[in-house]
């Protein structure tokens, strides 16, 4: 395991924490507020959801919280930072609700897309097989929805790190993936689409360098299979 890889056992909760961060970032961007979350990997199987204090979960409880909707954080983290802890809980509940919202809107799709992309790039950067797969790739993927525009992007930066964002971008991508409508985009963000079938029936339009998308798609499916989503 090289220095950029994370212990496979800890990678899943860490990707989940990054995924929550991604969603909260778009959530705050859309509402014009400050993003209170920025996760930090701590010793002894704990993850702090904010950089400077705030809620801390054990790896196991963070996973449980995503799956079941509730789990106890480390008690001292609430006691030490009650306001930040409360704000964090509110953000977590908002994100959870978005996973249950049935009729999609563009904000929801952007937030969940970013959440999924954050988890995927965490795998692309730190998961052994995924790193190997993405090692020789470069460039950018832009995801969009017909009539709504860009909902997310992924690119490899100059440092060789895969990163993601949601804002419109003035850079040419290597490959573009365009969903026909919001429902399809929502299903795509939740990993419910068949990547081999939808492009063939006109629900997704792809152009550009396919191998990059194919590899990132594989990494993304690996991440989504392993990381628990809210039920």
């Amino acid at each position, binding site marked *: 395991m090289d220095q950029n890889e994370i212990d496979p056992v800890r990678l899943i909760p860490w990707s989940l924490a990054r995924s929550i961060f991604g969603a909260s970032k778009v959530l705050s961007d859309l509402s014009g507020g400050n993003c209170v979350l920025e996760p930090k990997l701590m010793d002894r199987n704990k993850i702090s959801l904010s950089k400077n204090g705030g809620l801390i979960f054990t790896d196991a409880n963070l996973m449980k919280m995503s799956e079941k909707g509730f789990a106890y954080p480390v008690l001292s983290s609430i006691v030490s930072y009650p306001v930040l802890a409360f704000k964090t809980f509110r953000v977590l509940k908002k994100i959870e609700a978005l996973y249950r919202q049935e009729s999609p809107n563009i904000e929801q799709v952007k937030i969940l897309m970013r959440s999924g992309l954050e988890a995927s790039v965490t795998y692309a950067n730190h998961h052994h*097989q995924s790193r190997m*797969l993405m090692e020789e790739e470069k*460039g950018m993927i832009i995801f969009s929805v017909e009539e709504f525009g860009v909902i997310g992007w992924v690119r490899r930066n100059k440092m060789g790190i895969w990163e993601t964002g949601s804002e419109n971008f003035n850079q040419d991508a*290597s*490959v573009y993936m365009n969903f026909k409508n919001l429902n399809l985009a929502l299903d795509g963000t939740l990993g419910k689409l*068949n*990547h*081999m*079938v939808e*492009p*063939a*029936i*006109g629900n997704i*339009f*792809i*152009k*550009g*360098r*396919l*191998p990059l998308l*194919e*590899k990132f798609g*594989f990494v993304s499916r690996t991440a989504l299979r392993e990381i628990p989503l809210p039920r």
Partner: protein
Amino acid sequence: MKKLTRSESLFLRAQKVIPSGIYGHLAPVSGLPDCFPHYCEKARGHTFEDVDGKRWTDFMCGYGAVLHGFSNPEIETAANSQNANGRVFNQPAEVMIELAEELTKVIDFADWAVFAKNGSDLTTWAIRVAREHSQRPIVVKAKGAYHGVDAWCDPGLGGRIESDRQDIREFEWNDFGQLEDILNQNQDNVACVILTPYHHSSFGPSVMPAEGFWSEVRSLCNRDGVLLILDEVRTGGRLHDGGSHRYFGFQPDLSIFSKALGNGYSISACVGKRRYEKSSMEVFLTGSCWNDAVAMSAALCSLRISQRDGVAESVLRKGRFFSNGLEKIALNHGFSLSMTGPSSMPYPWFEGDNDLFLLQSFCRLAAAEGLFFHPHHNWFISNAHNDDSLSKALNQVNRFMPMLREASL
């Protein structure tokens, strides 16, 4: 709501009972699903008709499996004649011997031949023969080269474990230094080097061997007692009727053929030198329908046509005419286009179009004209093409090039 085409309806029906509907290199997502048909109705010569009745001029030849044109009458007659007597029996038919005799006659270094159904069957078998012969584990291949669907080499991403490739080493095509380093670092451990006659990776330009490449590879293999295996699955019959090694002037130890060998009938063959025959007998080889006498009859007929008509030279000449024409038309419209690889199986490459946007647009416009050009895989010139059909295709390209200019702005 848009009415579904028959192609789309069939695909929707298929994906309920077939994973992905269509898989592998024929999967719609690998091409241009918005303008390529998903299903074909019939094909003859250099044209095919999709299930919606649209007629296409073909430049893919069943991804190389057809050399003498679809449903070539001579080959169909040979196949039908054998079929009247049956095709798979408890014992092989005499045609199996005739086919092996023909291959060992046509391919100068070959003393024996074995048969299977697909290229992968025999690329994998051939590396095992090399391992048996040398009693060494390591296989060396070129990075990005396709040799089949088995775990040691497949381009897919799923179902892999690290040990699948622990004895595989890769070097950049044309980089002798890298190859030599691999051989030096793994002395007495390399069983074989397996290569295609030229580098035909997908999604990128084809690369011909650099000057001296093959003689260098051959001498490195000789130096270290390493078998040189030539994967001719895609190239067989298209560069030289006696094997592509003759086109490039060297001699491999084993060669594998498939695709064009049966002109659409499923068959593959591995031929080798006498000194590897004993090892070949130690490596188990069989399959349910591998003694298929119909496919063997088709292959025999296909080989004889190639010899009689000089088909490799013919498709190279037709390809040159077509490739030169395309490059000229592109230039007239302000595009720098290179038809890479041998002219009988060219891959177009627009200068600077590394992400293939321009080539994809080009192939979309061609599809609207009924020209089946693939943006991600090398094309194939069929011997059923003639100067008229190729000139007509060039005229069609000339007509839509102004639209490509507009699309590229």
